[in-house]
């Protein structure tokens, strides 16, 4: 058992225990650690926004670019970007809507046709059963089950008709598929949460206390 000597490993271990202390009950150590986390995260983000976007894509080109038109173009963009600061100036805070509109508009516009292709058409196409599926019995059976599952799940979330007649059994089969799907997510979520806790113990018992190899 050889305890770590690096001061930083001790700092990391103390912060880990401070967060775990919440399990006993909410306390000052936990609050300190939580507020520290928010501060460091934002300081880290500022660093990389500065070094990896503003410097290489704005300051360098403006300083070094031979063409005057590029300088004017980039400075104009920087001015529009600076409008974000107006968010905190009450009288003219509506100006922040201009940069937001440009980013939001392009993002929504770009996603519409692409998502229709990737999420609707491709997934729809993958549900269609073709003769290729009948090459052997299991691919055929699974393709049929998936087709039924997709149609009944979609029908469960159909609100324009009362759940009477054919829709009643279809919705029932749909909820069975949905619940088996959520069961699969539930089982894997349990697995995920445990892994995160194991990761922290691998640090505490390994790197800090040196108990495990």
């Amino acid at each position, binding site marked *: 058992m050889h305890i770590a000597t690096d001061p930083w490993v001790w700092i990391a271990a103390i912060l880990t225990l401070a967060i775990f202390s919440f399990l006993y009950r909410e306390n000052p150590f936990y609050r300190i650690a939580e507020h520290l986390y928010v501060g460091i995260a934002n300081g*880290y983000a500022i660093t990389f926004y500065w070094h990896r976007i503003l410097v290489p894509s704005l300051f360098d080109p403006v300083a070094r670019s031979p063409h005057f038109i590029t300088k004017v173009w980039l400075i104009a963009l920087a001015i529009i970007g600076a409008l974000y600061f107006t968010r905190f100036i009450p009288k003219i805070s509506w100006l922040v809507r201009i940069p937001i509109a440009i980013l939001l508009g*392009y*993002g929504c516009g770009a996603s519409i046709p692409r998502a229709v292709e*990737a999420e609707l058409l491709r997934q729809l196409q993958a549900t269609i059963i073709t003769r290729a599926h009948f090459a052997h019995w299991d691919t055929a059976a699974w393709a049929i089950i998936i087709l039924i599952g997709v149609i009944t799940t979609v029908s469960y979330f159909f609100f324009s008709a009362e759940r009477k007649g054919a829709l009643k059994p279809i919705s029932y089969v749909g909820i069975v598929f949905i619940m088996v799907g959520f069961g699969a997510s539930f089982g894997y979520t349990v697995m995920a949460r445990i892994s995160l806790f*194991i990761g922290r*113990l691998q640090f505490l018992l390994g790197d800090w206390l040196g108990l495990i190899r």
Partner: protein
Amino acid sequence: MTPQADSARVSFWTRLQAIDRRWIYLVLAAVVIVPLLFPFKIKPKATTPVQKLFNYIDTMPREKALVISIDYTPDTRAELQPMVVALLRHAFATRRPVGVLAMAVYGLGLGEEALSQVAAEFNAHATNHEDSIINGEDYVFWGWTTPPLTVMLGMGERITNVFPVDYYGARTESLPIMRDLRNYDDMGILVTVAASAMPRSWIVYAQVQFGVHLSCGITAVSAADFYPYVNSGQFTGMLAGMKGAAEYEELVTAKMNKEGLDWGLRNRGTEAMSSQTAAHLAIMAFIIIGNIGFFATRRRK
């Protein structure tokens, strides 16, 4: 069942259910710590999606690059970092060019950790310039920029426009590896390792327009939600949670041993499997006992 025995049984179960949740925390902690100190060996058997990704990377043409996108943050590092390390070892062991980028700014530090760790592992055993792993020749760490749309669409045209400068600050045009790594066409596969919906954006923006081959390493929480993309062929296989990481580690270690690179490297994912198993059984026991208590008391009310 006499009334007294009946009420005794009910009061036992209600008391058992009402115990303080911190006792349950202690039980869970013990169940995880003990197997960490005294692990029992577990050989995870590769499931189909993991095998599919491994076979694809193994049989990719030699000059095609393996690109890894770090789309997760330190929150889910325990599950996803072992995947990145295993993928890097697989690529370096088979002498493939590697490109790494991060779509989450907090993924940068994780990318740096994984790359320096695996490069050091290989360089420790390298004898000459040929087998050592050199930044700028064998791998490039493009770093991060935003918004995601600029990256995903821009890398289909020219990567050096999207990443003029790499993580370390060097100009990307000057790096030798970038000569034949211009855009998606020079990539064998791009693996998005993520905890959130970023893989969906890679499909919607990168694959639809440029047809790049994609796969994903995902936390077990969202794994079930991505199976439709594996089924439709949009993802070529998938690594799900720490179990997926352990399976891929197993395949890579076996491959490296076969190629005479048996360096006894640590596999974080596999090491956690014994605790993972114990904790699973504990959670299942909690649910079963809880439900027995529930049904025992319910009949009484």
